[in-house]
């Protein structure tokens, strides 16, 4: 069995009447890093919350490791760790106590050696006896990760893990997440920072208005939807684009010194050649040329923007 989480036809309507999820179908593969992208209110947190047991599912089923999250919630939930979006942690406790509490809550006997290693990995060991209220925001975020990992889950959910975290800590966290993945943990995350999903994820799902609009390998997603741009540095700035080139839908940069041609990476290599020939025949000279691939962010905005 390949998938570690199977979401089948999952829908959720809140008592207010808001339909947060509509017929979501999703398979998460064992050992992958899966990034869930979507604008605020798209249903990312609802989806995670249902799988983790915080929100009741409406219609549909979710299987974790083949176990139904409602019928076999004990075995299913023992496999899952959750790092919530909010910094919700009881501030009067010490780091050590709260991590030990989490381990017990998930039904595991005490294991000080493991917890010590966990806190060391998260650079929290020297803070183990500190009360959580004395820690910085970034430290609290690490405490939440330590709590989620305290019972050695096979699946880790990270809901916006790097929101409000400085660059250095963010880098540390991603390194830790990679290490976890290497040790066999499946990771599902939501993030604002698309370049992180681009950098980290094996597969990406895009959710919009409660519907999973797309799930794909990151690389094939970028190939499929990726747009390329050809930038031509002109020798003499153009006042306007010659009418003869209208079919290419070219753009001029703000200072009129660059011609920008956007094309689909999949095909149309031929059009570049014809464009260049045509420019040549029109006597438009260029000193440099450059191509650039669209980032996941461009793709994402394209997808989400389409609906608006």
């Amino acid at each position, binding site marked *: 069995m390949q998938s570690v989480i199977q979401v089948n036809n999952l829908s959720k309507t*809140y*008592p207010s009447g808001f339909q947060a999820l509509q017929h979501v179908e999703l398979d998460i593969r064992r050992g992958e890093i899966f990034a869930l992208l979507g604008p605020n209110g798209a249903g990312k947190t609802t989806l995670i919350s249902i799988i*983790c*047991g*915080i*929100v*009741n599912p409406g219609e549909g089923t979710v299987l974790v490791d083949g176990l139904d999250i409602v019928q076999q*919630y*004990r*075995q*299913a*939930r*023992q496999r*899952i760790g*959750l790092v*919530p979006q*909010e910094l*919700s*942690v*009881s*501030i*009067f*406790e010490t780091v050590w*106590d709260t991590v*030990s*509490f*989490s*381990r*017990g*809550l*998930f*039904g*595991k*006997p005490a294991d000080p050696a493991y917890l010590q290693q966990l806190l060391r990995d998260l650079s929290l060991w020297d803070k183990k006896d500190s009360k959580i209220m004395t820690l910085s925001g970034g430290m609290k975020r690490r405490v939440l990760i330590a*709590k989620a990992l305290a019972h050695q889950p096979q699946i880790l959910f990270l809901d916006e893990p790097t929101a409000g975290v400085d660059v250095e800590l963010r880098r540390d966290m991603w390194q830790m997440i990679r290490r976890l993945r290497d040790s066999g943990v499946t990771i599902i995350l939501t993030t604002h920072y698309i370049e992180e999903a681009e950098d980290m994820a094996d597969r990406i799902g895009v959710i919009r208005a409660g519907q999973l609009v797309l799930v794909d390998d990151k690389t094939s997603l970028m190939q499929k939807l990726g747009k390329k741009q050809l930038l031509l540095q002109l020798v003499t700035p153009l006042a306007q684009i010659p009418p003869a080139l209208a079919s290419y839908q070219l753009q001029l940069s703000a200072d009129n010194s660059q011609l920008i041609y956007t094309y689909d990476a999949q095909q149309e290599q031929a059009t570049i050649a014809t464009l260049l020939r045509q420019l040549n025949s029109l006597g438009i000279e260029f000193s440099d040329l450059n191509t650039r691939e669209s980032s996941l962010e461009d793709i994402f905005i394209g997808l989400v923007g389409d609906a608006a």
Partner: protein
Amino acid sequence: MNFYAIKAIYLFELARTWRTLMQSIASPVLSTSLYFIVFGSAIGSRMVAIDGISYGAFIVPGLIMLTVLTESTSNASFGIYMPKFSGTIYEILSAPVSAVEIILGYVGAAASKAILLGLIILLTAQFFVDFSIIHPLWMLTFLVLTAISFSLFGFIIGVLANSFEQLQIVPLMVITPLTFLGGSFYSISMLPPLWQQITLFNPVVYLISGFRWSFYGVADVNVGFSLAMILLFMTSCIGVICWIFHTGYKVKI
């Protein structure tokens, strides 16, 4: 059964008591001592004995009950309300625990603390008045059953409360008046006949009466009836909690 989870919640809750030692233990002990000084020693010395018991000794069971009821209700309600308020409830909800385990943890801790307090006040009372306990086992039974019942009751309040104000209002506006009017400081037979009838609708009357019986062998109402009332109250609370968890009302959406 996830025993590790029960233990984790139980210890977490007791640790909270330990952190707030002054507020949790010292303040009820102090206020009860004041009651003993004022009602027991100062006023009590001028009061006639009730059913052959000196007034100071007469109020001991009632004062213990006053503390046990208030403390078990407020502790259990606070214990479950805090995670809701701070958002840490996510962890409890996502953990492999059933409602039974959650209740055993929270209610068990609140009840333990209330029982401990009751016993501490019992010891404190020894310094102010002379009294003996005729049925110590029944005394413990009443103490434990009451602590558990009102911790269950507090748990319900904590789950249903939407604000700190709502959390405070039940102990303040319901439990305290019922206890004061439930015969903590007087015998029901001292009331005018009409009030004797009305007061029988106050459940606390049965608790205090039964508890006092275990001390001195005298009661306002039949002891069996007292026991039945506590068990009825406890069962009703368990029923409400089952319903809350079954429907997810105010807990999950």
